[in-house]
């Protein structure tokens, strides 16, 4: 098992590098922009895959967590604190090195929170919100759980679109770059395109590594037992409520981190990121990937988001995702990229019985 994971991870790293090299040699580096954005969306999807596929809990509100991360970091890094310069809290923050001075487009002086501090605040806020919401929500099942998470997503969307401090329908823009290391920053600058591609995919690889470790541990087995039969898992002494809640919070954090990074990369965030359609998209992709199949979710997430972001789907963008949901759920509810499909294909091509199926 271990060696298979290592091989797969190695393959992912190799694929990420290969794609970048190919675009560099063919002069099509403009693809990297969408690939970077797809990577951040895939991060949400990896988290959601843990929750849906392994813990068996649907969430139709994950765009909400993405938006919480994005909006908090966008708000903190663009909200000018200089009118409050003399107040106790602001001067304390300033002394603690949490604030940064910069000039805006028109030459005005801005005093804002440092991106890394904003990022930490965003993640902490997500954790708190996810615990508060997740506690009662995850006690629900089936339709009730779906509607409750849908409701949560809608609330976040309404707040984003209805609050003038958050830019209402226009969202927030002019978000500064996020300097991770002296030579590494998350920004939409053309010259930083390659390094941003690697930052994004590095993050995804870390997330996948982390998730795989969880899946193949005691926690992962507990989660699958919850998915299979929750009552039985409970009877076996597994604290199902705690496992479900922790997975929910973890997947929320994944979404929130993706929101923070993508907001810095795009230089802004709008309410459409919080919309229900986004949440449905994430669910669609996890479903297409095969629910409990991290690799499937990752491949489909990258592919579909890339196609959608490049505009290949045209005005049928949302319709494609709706159609995918229906077709997959009607005909192959276990997912398109389920391992069995591969095995079946291999069996067809090689015409020999699979050794593993005995």
């Amino acid at each position, binding site marked *: 098992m271990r060696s298979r994971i290592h091989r797969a991870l190695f393959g992912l790293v190799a694929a990420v590098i290969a794609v970048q090299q190919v675009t560099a040699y063919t002069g099509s580096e403009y693809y990297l922009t969408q690939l970077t954005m797809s990577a951040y969306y895939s991060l949400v999807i990896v988290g959601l895959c843990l929750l849906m596929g392994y813990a068996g809990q649907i969430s139709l509100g994950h765009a909400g967590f993405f938006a919480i991360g994005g909006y908090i970091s966008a708000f903190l890094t663009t909200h000018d604190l200089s009118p409050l310069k003399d107040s106790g809290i602001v001067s304390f923050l300033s002394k603690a090195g949490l604030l940064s001075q910069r000039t805006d487009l028109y030459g005005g002086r801005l005093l804002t929170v440092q991106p890394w501090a904003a990022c930490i605040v965003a993640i902490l806020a997500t954790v708190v919100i996810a615990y508060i919401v997740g506690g009662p929500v995850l006690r*629900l099942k089936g339709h009730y759980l779906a509607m*409750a998470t849908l409701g949560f997503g809608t609330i976040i969307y*309404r707040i984003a679109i209805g609050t003038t401090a958050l830019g209402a329908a226009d969202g927030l823009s002019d978000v500064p770059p996020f300097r991770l290391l002296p030579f590494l920053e998350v920004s939409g600058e053309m010259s930083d395109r390659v390094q941003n591609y690697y930052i994004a995919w590095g993050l995804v690889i870390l997330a996948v590594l982390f998730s795989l470790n969880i899946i193949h541990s005691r926690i992962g087995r507990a989660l699958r037992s919850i998915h299979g039969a929750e009552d039985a898992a409970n009877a076996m002494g597994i604290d199902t409520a705690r496992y479900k809640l922790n997975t929910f919070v973890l997947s929320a954090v994944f979404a929130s981190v993706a929101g923070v990074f993508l907001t810095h990369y795009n230089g802004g965030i709008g309410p459409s990121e919080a919309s229900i359609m986004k949440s*449905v998209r994430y669910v669609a992709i996890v479903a297409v990937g095969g629910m409990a199949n991290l690799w499937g979710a990752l491949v489909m997430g990258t592919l579909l988001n890339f196609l959608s972001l490049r505009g290949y789907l045209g005005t049928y963008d949302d319709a494609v*995702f709706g159609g995918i949901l*229906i077709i997959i*759920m009607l005909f192959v509810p276990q997912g398109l990229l389920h391992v069995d499909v591969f095995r079946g294909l291999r069996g067809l091509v090689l015409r020999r019985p699979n050794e593993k199926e005995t």
Partner: protein
Amino acid sequence: MNFDLFFQYIVAGITYGTIYAVVAIGFNIIYNATGIINFAQGEFVMLGGMTAVTLLRYLPLPAAVLAAMIITMLVGGLIEILFIRWLYKPSVLRMIIITIGLSILIRETALHIWGEGVKALPYFTGTSVSSIKLGGVFISPQVLWVVGISAVMVALLNIFFSYTITGRQMRACSVNRDAARLCGINAKNMVTLSFMLSAAIGALGGCIVSPITYVQYDSGTPLAIKGFTVAILGGLGNSVAAVAAGLVLGILESFSIWVMPAAYKDVISISILLLILFVRPSGLFGSKEAADLKEF
């Protein structure tokens, strides 16, 4: 707040509450027959309103509304036959995802047919400015149409479910599907029928309310969430309680504008939904024991 304004809010609340109740009844009919929550219920409302607006070019108003109901009803039936009828014991998660997919497809189809524009039927009597004065309160005649037609519809539904053979067969299926089949009831047809019925009811709701609230290709989802809130508030499956719950939510919402900006109106109703789900998932009027037996 003076007395007249207070009543004005009440009237607005009743209007919206009635529509929520109509959507909730649609949810309940399908839920009773299949145990499915049809996430595309709001789209039936939108489809009804849109179709009626288009048909109005060729037909007089009552005929257009009737034709819109029939068309939406056929769409509802077709959806059931194509996407749901032949599934063998689908899981709840699978049904949720399929109906969500359907709602997206219907919405996108509507977008391609009718565009993004906002549409509305004309006021059934009078115009948007005409009003009837009751005491110190001005009521648009359309409000009376909405309340009146919905009341008649609820009454007719009750008669249908209590006294007609088909209605009683549908009820039998919702109580015990296997026993109903042993009695020679075609349970699958009853499910198709429930989809048709609930599509027609949704379409009627969309028609009567469109002069006041307008319809747009994406006006279904918010209505579905409100309708679901109401269905839960009344206790899932209980249509009479849904009417009462609809009025409660409508009035609460209309007064919420008084305390909070209108942009947060939905936040109020959805917070109520979450609160009920957390505290009392059997609904305000439902019994807890009955709720425990159901599978959500």
